[in-house]
């Protein structure tokens, strides 16, 4: 595929402690996280991270707490300095940037959405949304139109002159998103942006993000600890554990072929019908099926297909993408794909 690489992370290490360089040498020789903490009293934050973040895609970095995902996203705009490695943005190493270049990068290239919203409590919603422009030196009158446009886009029309504390959590995070969008930067970093919201609002916000993404095609890096969320949003999924990458790739691919018992264990709990999509289980062919029961999109999830078939496993569907046939899906194949992978050999979960 000819996808442009926007950000490329190479051999990134982060070690927390008084002498990270010394500890780095031990890690390179193969010392693990627990041993490093015990013997050297350093915390291994990130270990040999290599990720390519493609332009116009949502890259989701998923991991449980302590896996280093928040540390990783803060390396992209250097809120945290790495111990070793390279981060290239459009081919330029971000780590070589001086203060001015870095500020320009943060102002014009990357915007960020935070878990705890981090809005300015003493500014109105409008001023918060225009924060990126305010920082660049525009006055309120100058950015008012732009900020209002994005606030309306995230559904906050009429709230412009309220203060953040007058809004609910979901609305505050909408302001956070409007603030990131109004900066007009090509890259959006979202640090557990929806984790503090309740499930219904979270689902709304995910839909909002996907909708905006269809339209704007930003490069989004999204951090989450929620597997369902990551499967819903991700074009590219990176799974982190204890500071290293366990597996990365297309989410459907990871679901169908997990390469680590940790991931198998992880995905054994999820509703496969809801997250698996037709394109992952269909047979690729352009020959129309003989007894076609109907057309489905390659992006439909299996749950909707089951609903459509009323549970009849004898049907065959034609899979369409942008009006052209790309494959055929037999319901029998679909049911096979729903068989959970044999995850917990013995008691795999207890090992993690």
């Amino acid at each position, binding site marked *: 595929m000819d996808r442009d690489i926007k950000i490329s992370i190479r051999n990134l290490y982060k070690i927390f402690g008084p002498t990270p360089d010394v500890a780095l040498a031990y890690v390179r020789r193969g010392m693990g996280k627990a041993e490093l903490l015990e013997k050297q009293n350093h915390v291994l934050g990130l270990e040999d991270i290599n990720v390519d973040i493609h332009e116009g895609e949502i890259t989701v970095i998923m991991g449980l707490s302590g896996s280093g995902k928040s540390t990783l996203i803060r390396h992209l705009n250097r809120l945290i300095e790495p111990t070793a490695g390279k981060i290239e943005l459009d081919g330029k190493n971000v780590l070589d940037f001086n203060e001015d270049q870095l500020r*320009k990068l943060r*102002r014009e290239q990357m915007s*960020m959405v935070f878990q705890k*919203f981090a809005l*300015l409590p003493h500014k109105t919603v409008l001023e918060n949304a225009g924060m990126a422009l305010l920082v660049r030196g525009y006055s309120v009158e100058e950015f008012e139109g732009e900020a209002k446009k994005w606030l309306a886009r995230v559904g906050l029309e009429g709230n412009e002159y309220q203060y953040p504390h007058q809004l609910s959590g979901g609305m505050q995070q909408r302001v956070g998103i409007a603030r990131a969008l109004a900066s007009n930067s090509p890259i959006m970093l979202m640090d557990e942006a929806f984790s503090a919201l309740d499930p219904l609002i979270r689902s709304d916000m995910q839909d909002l993000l996907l909708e905006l993404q269809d339209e704007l095609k930003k490069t989004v890096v999204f951090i989450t600890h929620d597997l369902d969320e990551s499967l819903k949003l991700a074009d590219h999924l990176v799974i982190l554990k204890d500071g290293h990458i366990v597996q990365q790739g297309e989410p459907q691919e990871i679901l169908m072929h997990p390469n680590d018992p940790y991931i198998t264990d992880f995905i054994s709990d999820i509703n496969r019908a809801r997250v698996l999509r037709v394109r992952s289980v269909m047979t690729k062919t352009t020959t129309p099926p003989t007894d076609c029961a109907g057309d489905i999109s390659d992006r439909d999830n299996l749950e909707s297909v089951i609903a459509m078939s009323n549970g009849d496993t004898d049907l065959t569907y034609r899979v369409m993408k942008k009006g052209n046939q790309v494959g055929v899906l037999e319901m029998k194949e679909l049911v096979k794909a729903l068989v959970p992978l044999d995850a917990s050999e013995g008691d795999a979960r207890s090992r993690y």
Partner: protein
Amino acid sequence: MATYDFIFSALGLEDWCAEGQSDAPMSMAALLQKTKGTTGEPESLWDTPFPSMDALNESCAAFPKSRELTKGLEEGFLSIKDSLSVVLDPLTQPLSWALDGALYGMLNTPWWIVIPLLLAVVFFVTKSWKLVGFVAGSLFLLAFIDYYRYAMETLSIIFVCAFLCVLFGVPIGIAMSRSDMMQRLTVPVLDMLQTLPPFVYLIPLIFLFSVTESKLYGIAIILYAIVPVIRLTNLGIRLVDKDVIEAADAFGMTSQQKLFKVQIPLALPNIMAGVNQTIMMSLAMVVIASLVSAPGLGVLVLQGIRNLELGVGLVAGLGIVILAVILDRVTKASLARINASQKQ
């Protein structure tokens, strides 16, 4: 022979001690001792004196007495006093002008301008008619019992000193919040200023400046009252939500933008609490400073003590309480307005 002779003989310092012998007249204590016929040698272990400077001096005349320590300090201070004055006098002269100017302005403006002006300020900072009414009532009461002049003197001193405290205190607090080193250096000084009894400030100041100059009490008040505003500015900025600071960084704010657009506005409730404390402490000090010629209600309190005029002292004390309540209510009300506008 005295108790600690053995120390000096053991160290072989008898010669050095002998040099200190003088034929000067005996001290009163030595004379008394002589008449009693005791040698100064304690009779039992029970009476052994602590090896203090005076006790050691008894054994060895060359060893300095403790009196010489305080005397040395005094002489040292007096010897640098003149050169210190050369530097400090011009530096602090504006304070004198400010205090004299404020006093002159406040007292020579007719009451029917000053009182409405004060009430307008109260309304401007609190937006509360109830408070304006309370302040008006208090001021009229003070004026009615002919304490208007004294109250205005006290108020104008407080205004000048509290303003200067904020002017210097807030930047110092900001500097402390931005550098841990600065904080480590400043905190002991603040601790000292806060624990030193207020009277002690006055002693070196009396030597440095003339008692007729108003900067004398001005400096004493500022030193005493500046501490809370420094501390609370530092604390307020350090307590600003880390997430908001991170967001400011992530959007590429310069450290100046961060300071003026995020840190100071968010620290404002704490800074204002510091200002409130500073004003209250200036009021406390302006009373004590009447000892060194600060005008105002404190003079009446002092008069009450000195001349045993019970009534004058008590009424003046009541006047101070009224001023304290006014200042506290007004600053608290404006603080509450700031708090309300930035709930998290």
